[in-house]
């Protein structure tokens, strides 16, 4: 171990590198750039490439020839009557899965927002000790494995689940709402991502100057006005950021619909998983579906970031 010498020279090189702005930037930024390029951008680019080839239905091998077939299949050839307001069309399985996922994610996001707001607001008004206890009570479910939380709702819902059994014990039910299916999935997603919303909201509400609120009240503003004119604008970055953290993963959810849907609710995550490694085993078709999902998310993000700076979303 002639380490000291080598350590010293290594150290000297590092010091030299860090002393110059140019190399300092290189040393700090490069590893992350390489990681993102190799493990995020390259795979997404490759997935996009794969989505433009096909798979031989006989040998299940990929045929490396360009084709738009997978994209055509996503949108053409649907047979299920579907109406979106006044527009009626024949939806493919993919289109139905997209619409369903976006609808479920929207409801879960709104629920999270409506439910988290009072708690976040209350938390800003708590004393030190009460705050510590509350944040502990919020963080513990947050840190508890996602899978465990989804599973806990599996026990709650279902014909013989805790909710229906409890109702049965007092002579009511079983209630269809508490069966597995879309309502169970919405509750599961709301529970799963609620803490994201709460923490993001809290972080933005915490900056709220309550003397302003009091002043507004003294000046005769109604509660609704205070909330509308003072609290919401201040909390807006939190509301948008929190919604993002709930909405995007909800759209692509897999575990929750898989566990709480009993095979009857095909959200987009399930559809993609089935195509990627399920019985149909069609990588290019899975790739095409993924590309479209990514595109819709990117569009949504671009819209959001026109209004909020990413910096303000930090912390969650």
């Amino acid at each position: 171990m002639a380490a000291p010498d080598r350590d010293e020279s290594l150290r000297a090189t590092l010091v030299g590198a860090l002393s110059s702005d140019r190399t300092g930037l290189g040393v700090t930024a490069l590893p992350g750039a390489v990681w993102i390029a190799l493990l995020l951008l390259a795979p997404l680019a490759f997935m996009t490439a794969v989505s433009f080839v096909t798979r031989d239905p006989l040998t299940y091998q990929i045929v490396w020839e360009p084709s738009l077939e997978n994209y055509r299949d996503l949108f053409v050839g649907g047979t299920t009557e579907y109406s979106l307001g006044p527009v009626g069309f024949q939806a493919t399985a993919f289109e139905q899965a997209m619409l369903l996922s976006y609808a479920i994610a929207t409801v879960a996001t709104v629920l999270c927002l409506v439910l988290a707001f009072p708690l976040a607001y209350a938390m800003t008004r708590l004393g030190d000790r009460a705050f510590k206890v509350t944040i502990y009570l919020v963080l513990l479910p947050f840190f508890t494995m996602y899978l465990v939380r989804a599973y806990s709702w599996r026990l709650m819902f279902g014909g013989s689940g805790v909710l229906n059994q409890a109702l049965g014990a007092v002579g009511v039910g079983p209630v269809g709402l508490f069966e597995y299916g879309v309502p169970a999935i919405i509750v599961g997603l709301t529970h799963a991502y609620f803490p994201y919303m709460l923490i993001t909201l809290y972080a933005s509400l915490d900056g709220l100057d309550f003397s302003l609120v009091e002043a507004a009240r003294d000046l005769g503003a109604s509660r609704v006005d205070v909330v509308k004119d003072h609290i919401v604008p201040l909390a807006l970055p939190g509301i948008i950021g929190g919604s993002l953290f709930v909405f995007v993963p909800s759209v692509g959810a897999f575990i929750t619909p898989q566990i709480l849907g009993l095979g009857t609710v095909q959200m987009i995550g399930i559809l993609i998983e089935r195509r990627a490694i399920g019985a149909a085993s069609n990588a290019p078709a899975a790739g095409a579906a993924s590309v479209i999902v990514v595109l819709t998310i990117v569009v949504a993000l671009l819209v959001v970031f026109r209004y909020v700076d990413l910096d303000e979303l930090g912390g969650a």
Partner: protein
Amino acid sequence: MATETDERTEPAERTDEEFGDRLIDWRTREQLLQVGLYGTAALMLLFLWVPLLVIVFLSFTESPNLLPFEGFTLYNYTRVPGEADLQSSVVTSFGIATLSATIATAIGVLASFALTRYRFRFRELYRTFGIVPMIIPGVILGVGLRFYFQFLLPVEPGFLATVLTHSLYGLPFVLLIVTARLYTFDESLEEAARDLGADPLTTFRDVTFPVIAPAIAAGFLFAWVRSFEDYIRALFVSGVEVTPLTQWMFGKITKASAENLNLLNSVSTLVVLVIAIALAAAMNYGNVSGYVAGTAHEDEEE
């Protein structure tokens, strides 16, 4: 609002009694609202907790269902030590989480310095893509990396592929927490140290690191937990032979026999217990809640 204005314009016409009534009325309303607010807040905490408490309760019962109630037992826990598959999956998950969180922390801390200390052309882009792995749906990240490893790289699905995947997934958590801390860091301290002749490494070790260490620890913790609890990304890249804890658990859920559910209930309870203790310790030791809520800088600058 109209009545309140009335109150202000014509207070003189009121008798003291009437005014007192109004005041009490106002106070009751205020109190009711207060109760309503805290009541809703408490209900939310209940919503977060009831399902977990149900698991804890059921882990001590004979049947994995609430009814018919068949009595309490510790039997579900006595089975845990005998489950070889369970133990190896816990070891696997610990290994993957620790390695991937270490990589994510190393890269994430460096990147945080790049973002906060340097102005460069693609800074915004760099930051955005640094956060994308957290936001992009797990199914898509998993599918993309699976194809990539499978067709393009000589990395077969397995331990290494999972570590690499999770190291990317953990990166944004480190990045967000550490950059937030660095933004509020008083750079004049570093300048002072440098003026006194300390080289960049010494400055980092003696001045910067002690201040940002809790943020780094929080970032590591986040990345670790995210890896440990991930199912979907690992599903695509872990292969048949590597079984993280989440896959073991998912198997018990899909093969939902009474036996399996009983065992799963006790394992889930142990998970909640371990995390409860770890979190309590972390909160007493460091300002975890502050980092999570993004308020750390206010609490312990200087």
